[in-house]
């Protein structure tokens, strides 16, 4: 074929007649290969596609996916190993990653028709997945007793119910926690904040801290949906009511104004630092980077915060009446509806929630154990002081908790992002509180429409 080859008529005619035969064979072979390849791959994919056999000892491999840090991975792997030890036929394909990007990956896996049998999910996305029937309805398993939630607080397992279907089982319980820098306060002879302070008192306290220590007293939580939510509940409102929003533009304006007042008094950091706190993950919250006296988090995040600072930390409820808070499922375990081993997957979830040894291994990493009997056992065993603190606070609050709200609507993650955008817009002084509130409400309505 090289162009430099001298074309001679003699040698030419022969190959022209002959090659096609050879070539055709080659082509046929290649085509066959090309056609067969997907079939072979498909067959390989179908190879283990038989219905779950009735033999209880048939080997089962379950995929399981969660987000979290290395500590959580270690504990979870240990607990799963224990399950395999008790049921040698069941093994796990474990995947975990950081929270950022987790839900992108989960969505992509689902779209590819290959979601994990068991996955961790939280209330930001539970409704999205339940509404599209990606999650298995666990109600029948609960009724049969294969999934035992009898030892759970009633409101905790009900926080997994979406449109009458049990879409997920609480992997732990947590609640909002205001974490403050104890060392900073004692060094400057300042009082520690206490649960039950009003929002105004909290801001006045933060102003005092800022004046004395030169560290802004409190992170401005106006962009934080969970603080907004607690505040709303204390005003007799809610984030959602049925399929609608549970608040009005006036409520949002009042909320933004409350924090505008705090910023004007110098109780909070400057807008760019507030933004930094909003945008960062748990390891760089302002209370641990020393840029603010408090951070607004979930109580089970205390140990993670403590790991990132030398200072002593304290944790209390958010300001206002603590009955605005509730026992929240920090995250859930859900089973993929199309899983080939649903029953085994449900059994694994049940094991992670109710097996004494497993729960002891998992500790309070995902929040307080859902099973109340085991929660007591675990609480007595805990040695980590930060973990102890968070258990203490949550147990103290347990009697004061209000009723759990409904699981957030589909579109919740969008609403969270829009709240951040509107609040920050007001913080940077680009719009008034009322304009920001209006902007937020418009965005919310299209998000849940």
């Amino acid at each position, binding site marked *: 074929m090289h162009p430099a080859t001298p074309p001679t008529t003699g040698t*030419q005619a022969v190959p*022209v007649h002959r090659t*096609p035969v050879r*070539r055709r064979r080659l082509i046929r072979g*290649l085509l066959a290969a090309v056609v067969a390849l997907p079939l072979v791959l498909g067959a390989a994919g179908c190879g283990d596609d038989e219905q779950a056999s009735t033999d209880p000892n048939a080997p089962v491999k379950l995929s399981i996916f969660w987000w979290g840090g290395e500590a959580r991975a270690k504990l979870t792997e240990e607990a799963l190993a224990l399950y395999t030890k008790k049921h040698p036929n069941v093994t796990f394909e474990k995947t975990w990653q950081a929270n950022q990007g987790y*839900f992108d990956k989960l969505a992509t896996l689902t779209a590819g028709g290959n979601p994990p049998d068991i996955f961790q999910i939280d209330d930001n996305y539970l409704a999205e997945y339940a509404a599209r029937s990606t999650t298995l309805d666990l109600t029948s398993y609960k009724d049969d007793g294969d999934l035992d939630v009898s030892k759970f607080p009633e409101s905790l397992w009900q926080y997994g119910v979406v449109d009458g279907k049990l879409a997920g089982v609480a992997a732990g319980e947590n609640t909002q926690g205001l974490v403050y820098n104890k060392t900073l306060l004692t060094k400057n002879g300042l009082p520690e904040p206490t649960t039950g302070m009003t929002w105004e008192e909290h801001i006045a306290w933060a102003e005092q801290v800022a004046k004395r220590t030169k560290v802004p007293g409190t992170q401005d939580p106006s962009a934080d949906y969970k603080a907004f939510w607690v505040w709303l509940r204390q005003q007799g409102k809610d984030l959602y009511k049925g399929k609608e929003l549970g608040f009005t533009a006036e409520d949002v304006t009042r909320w933004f104004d409350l924090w505008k007042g705090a910023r004007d008094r110098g109780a909070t950091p400057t807008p760019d630092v507030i933004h*930094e706190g909003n945008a960062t993950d748990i390891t760089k919250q302002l209370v641990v980077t020393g840029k603010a006296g408090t951070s607004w988090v979930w109580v089970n995040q205390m140990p993670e915060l403590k790991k990132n600072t030398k200072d002593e930390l304290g944790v209390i409820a958010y300001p206002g009446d603590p009955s605005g808070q509730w026992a929240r499922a920090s995250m859930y375990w859900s089973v993929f509806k199309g899983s080939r081993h649903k029953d085994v997957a449900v059994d694994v979830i049940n094991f992670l929630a109710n097996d004494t040894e497993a729960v002891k291994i998992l500790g309070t990493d995902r929040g307080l154990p859902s099973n109340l009997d085991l929660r007591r056992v675990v609480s007595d065993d805990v040695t980590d002081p930060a973990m102890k603190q968070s258990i203490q606070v949550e147990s103290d609050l347990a009697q004061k908790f209000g009723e759990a709200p409904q699981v957030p609507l589909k579109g919740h993650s*969008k609403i969270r992002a829009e709240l951040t955008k509107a609040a*920050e817009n007001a913080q940077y002084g680009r719009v008034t509180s009322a304009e920001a509130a209006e902007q937020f409400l418009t965005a919310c309505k299209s998000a849940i429409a």
Partner: protein
Amino acid sequence: MALTTAPGPTRRRTGSVPTPAGRRGVGRARHGDGLAGYVFLSPWLLGLLAVTAIPMLLSLYLSFTNYDILTPLPEVEWVGFANYERMFTADPSYWHSVRVTLTFALVAVPLKLAAALGVALLLNRAWRGVGLFRGLFYLPSLLGGSVALAIVWVNMFNREGAFNSLLAFFGIEGKPWVNDPDWALETLMVLAIWQFGAPMVIFLAGLKQVPTELYEAASVDGAGRWRQFVAVTLPMLSPVIFFNLVLETINGFQGFTAAFVLSNGTGGPVDSTLMYTLNLYITGFTDLEMGYASAMAWVFLIAIAIITAIFFSTGRFWVHYSDGEDR
């Protein structure tokens, strides 16, 4: 390339065979050659189909549906032009992202090209160590759209960053550049401009091709340096400028990584870095509105095609191909 042109010479050669028998042979050979060509192309063709063509067509279809990723494909609903209508009439954040992207491209691309050309002119001389400098200026481009680079950038340009320390040295008070909605996009532009190495290398290659006789002739005619630059360098370089302009504009529109890293994937602060592609990503993967995101992607593709077409149609007024003028 070699594979696609392979059947060519054969055809021409066999075509010269005069006998009828030979001609029949030719017909068959032609047929066989074509098929063989495709067979040899098949790894690439299959890749094109599986990775590009089919997903693209699928996304075109999805752009007319309410696909939300979680719903299985066969169950998605056809919604006609609803997604496109929403984009053009009912989505302020869409238009905001268009503005952000246009601002970014209109500022960053010309400045980047100017920087690339300027440095290329400086480096187009024979002085000692010029190779080292060419390498150093090219280095940032090698790092390309890397995440690591964006992270470094964020840390250099935040309140406690190196850039503010530098400013403080001169007694200037800095800003929290990346966390300030008025400056975050500008910070991204600087990052893009700083990576001018790739167009610079292409400019350098172009400069080397300008015949020295032209400069000699120009100086004989009494042209100064500036005149030489305007009358000789720029016209001779215009095809290269054109190439870089088209490429960098497309690149500029597609900027994603730095904005994603800087804003933790949100486009913040207050949507100031919400580039088109980032908005598309958030719509598709965070808000799970993949049908709508597909529509956005198609509009984007068409917009870039139109802009490129405009470049090509204006090209004949200012792009000079030295061999073309004699034709």
